């Protein structure tokens, strides 16, 4: 214990000696939560859609009105502005200004009056498949709604939809807790990923090697001081997230706090493992980015729902720490879930650091052996 303490003191000196870095570490998450919190969201709004109404009848006008009343679409009448609306529309679609062109055929209104089958032509920009899918869904809904007006389907079937936990369907409830999880992992991993590789680069690792410290003592001594730094970072992130984005904390803060300590330690141990393997700081940094950025964004449920992932990737998502913490933080913050809902996640987040530290210990001992 005494030896670990000495190492902790040394490492703390190291942290405090470089105030610029420390300042970056504290300022970075605040800036990140502010910038990304405001800038990243998935809401679909202001879809510019061009309309070419060849029918010009009462019914087609009703349909156009339906599109106009939808809050997602901004409708532009192409026929009014251009002599060759289709060609001009294609050009605007190509430039990305328009996302779709809706063409109502000439016999539309008449056919509807007579109750005959008719169709609506739509040219959709598919480049962003996600957005295209959403727009397609909205088109379908509007068309169904239009038919509804003629046949009063609601008289036949009653569907009551109630959205729980987030009645206004605000995406910030989804993104901000997710962002907190992703940022915490990235920052904690980053913190420790440089510690051992830095000593390797400057050669001072030899001094540690020949000391009487056992390998696991070195590993622990390198990790523990950063727990405090990370805790400060975490409190800062949570605080700014709550103040700026009005996220309700429906659950118990203590529950979140306990799990976040596990999560922080997971991040720090991942960093230590990277640091033991990497021989230079830039390599450690690069590895950190590869292991935290893309997996935490794409495979954790941060943006893309986990249930929609391919089964292989879904299996893979279990070894991404952010997956589990995301579930916890979203549950506690938005749904007010309790500790009993997260037994599985809690166990996994305990296993992570143990496994990571053990592997780093083995790796570190090997390197030490080799240098003798």
């Amino acid at each position, binding site marked *: 214990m005494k030896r670990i303490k000495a190492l902790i003191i040394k490492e703390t000196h190291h942290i405090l000696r470089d105030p610029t870095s420390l300042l970056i570490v504290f300022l970075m998450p605040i800036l990140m939560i502010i910038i990304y919190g405001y800038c990243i969201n998935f809401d679909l709004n202001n879809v510019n859609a061009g309309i070419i109404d060849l029918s010009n009848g009462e019914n087609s006008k009703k349909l156009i009105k339906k599109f106009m009343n939808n809050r997602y679409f901004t409708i532009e009448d192409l026929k009014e502005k251009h002599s060759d609306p289709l060609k001009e529309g294609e050009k605007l679609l190509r*430039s990305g200004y328009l996302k779709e062109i809706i063409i109502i055929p000439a016999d539309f209104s008449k056919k509807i009056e007579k109750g005959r089958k008719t169709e609506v032509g739509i040219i959709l920009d598919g480049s962003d498949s996600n957005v295209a899918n959403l727009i397609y869904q909205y088109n379908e809904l509007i068309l169904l709604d239009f038919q509804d007006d003629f046949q009063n*389907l609601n008289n036949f079937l*009653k569907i009551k939809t109630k959205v729980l936990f987030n*009645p206004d369907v605000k995406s910030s409830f989804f993104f901000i807790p997710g962002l907190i999880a992703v940022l915490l992992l990235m920052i904690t991993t980053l913190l420790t990923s440089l510690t051992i590789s830095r000593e390797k680069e400057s050669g001072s690792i030899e001094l540690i090697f020949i000391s009487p410290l056992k390998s696991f003592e070195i590993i622990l001594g390198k990790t523990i001081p950063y727990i405090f730094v990370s805790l400060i970072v975490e409190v800062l992130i949570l605080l700014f997230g709550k103040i700026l984005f009005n996220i309700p904390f429906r659950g118990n803060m203590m529950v979140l706090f306990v799990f976040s300590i596990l999560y922080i330690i997971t991040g720090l141990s991942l960093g230590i493992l990277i640091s033991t393997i990497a021989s230079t700081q830039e390599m450690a940094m690069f590895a950190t980015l590869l292991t935290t950025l893309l997996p935490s964004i794409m495979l954790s449920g941060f943006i893309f729902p986990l249930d929609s992932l391919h089964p292989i990737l879904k299996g893979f998502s279990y070894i991404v720490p952010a997956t589990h913490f995301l579930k916890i933080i979203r549950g506690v913050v938005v749904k007010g879930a309790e500790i009993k809902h997260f037994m599985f996640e809690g166990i996994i987040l305990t296993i992570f650091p143990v496994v990571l530290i053990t592997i780093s210990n083995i790796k570190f001992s090997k390197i030490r052996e080799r240098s003798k």
Partner: protein
Amino acid sequence: MRIFYLVKKEFIEIFRQKELLTLLFIAPIIQIIILGYIVKTDVENIPIEIINLSKSKTSYRIINRIKNTPLFNVKHISYKNRDSINTLKEGNVKAVITFRDSFDKNRAMLKYPEIQILMDGTDSNTSSIAAGYFNGISKKYILTDIEKMDKKLSIKNKTLIRFNPALKSINYMGPGIVALLLTIVSLFLASASIVREKEQQTMDTLLISRLTSIEIYIGKALPIAIIGIINMSFGISVVMIWFKIPIRGNLFILLISAIIFLYAILSYGLLISTIASTKQQALFFSWFSMITFILLSGLFTPTENIPSNLQFLVKINPLSYLIKIIREIFLKGNGIEYFYKDLLCLSFIAILVISISILNFKRFTSK
């Protein structure tokens, strides 16, 4: 020709870190392949629970339809009422759909059940898609019923999808991820390169040599640029050959834009490296800038969603222009007349950053 020796020295220094090189070339490719192959950004398989209290014929038929769509994954069907709110809190299902017998006389005639949907609103995107889709399924079902009763009215939605007809997300993400790689690789190498000499105290050796400061600067930049270009060509080939993503536009313009971008990001990295006093500072700062560049580039989320008073962050972000240009060329096959403005902005940013970076380096060396 003196630069040549410096370039050679830089290459030796980079190649000495063998693991780094492997990581630089192999890891990103593996990531593109894994992500590109299996990541679908489409919403599918939303886990739901069904409580069928109605047990009527129609309810079974509608449930069958729900089971057959890829959008929903029916985890559990029960015939007794359960505490739905607790089910949602547990988080294993995203929605609970309850079918009740309706006592409304108007509807009783046709024996349609009353349907109640309880949604977990945490993931706002998924829940609004699911709700809309469910409405669609049930209404369509009734429409076909009505059609049978000879009260036809149907409007067909004939949609033609341009640029990415199969709606494959890899076509959209793949080319963008190549740009991301270029950013990561060049920014890291650049931001470490000058500060490394400072930390090892070899900077003075370079300074007292006969090399002018411009020569040192170019000698530092050139090897990284070469590695960046190789890395990117590698990435583009993987995207084109492995995923068979067609390149519809002009490959040459794509390369020119990428090189302009590369210079901008490189000199930005060198600027960080000149200002920082330890490698740790340089790496922290480049890490932070990199993530900001990436997240605000439109790669993952559309830039149109960024509030207008923060749009300037997109405007000063070189990566956002490159990603836009890459997508225009790859997916839409657009000619330069569609994105010459983006190319001009990118070049302007590049010139600005390069001059600041060189001036700063000159000031640093003259001290």
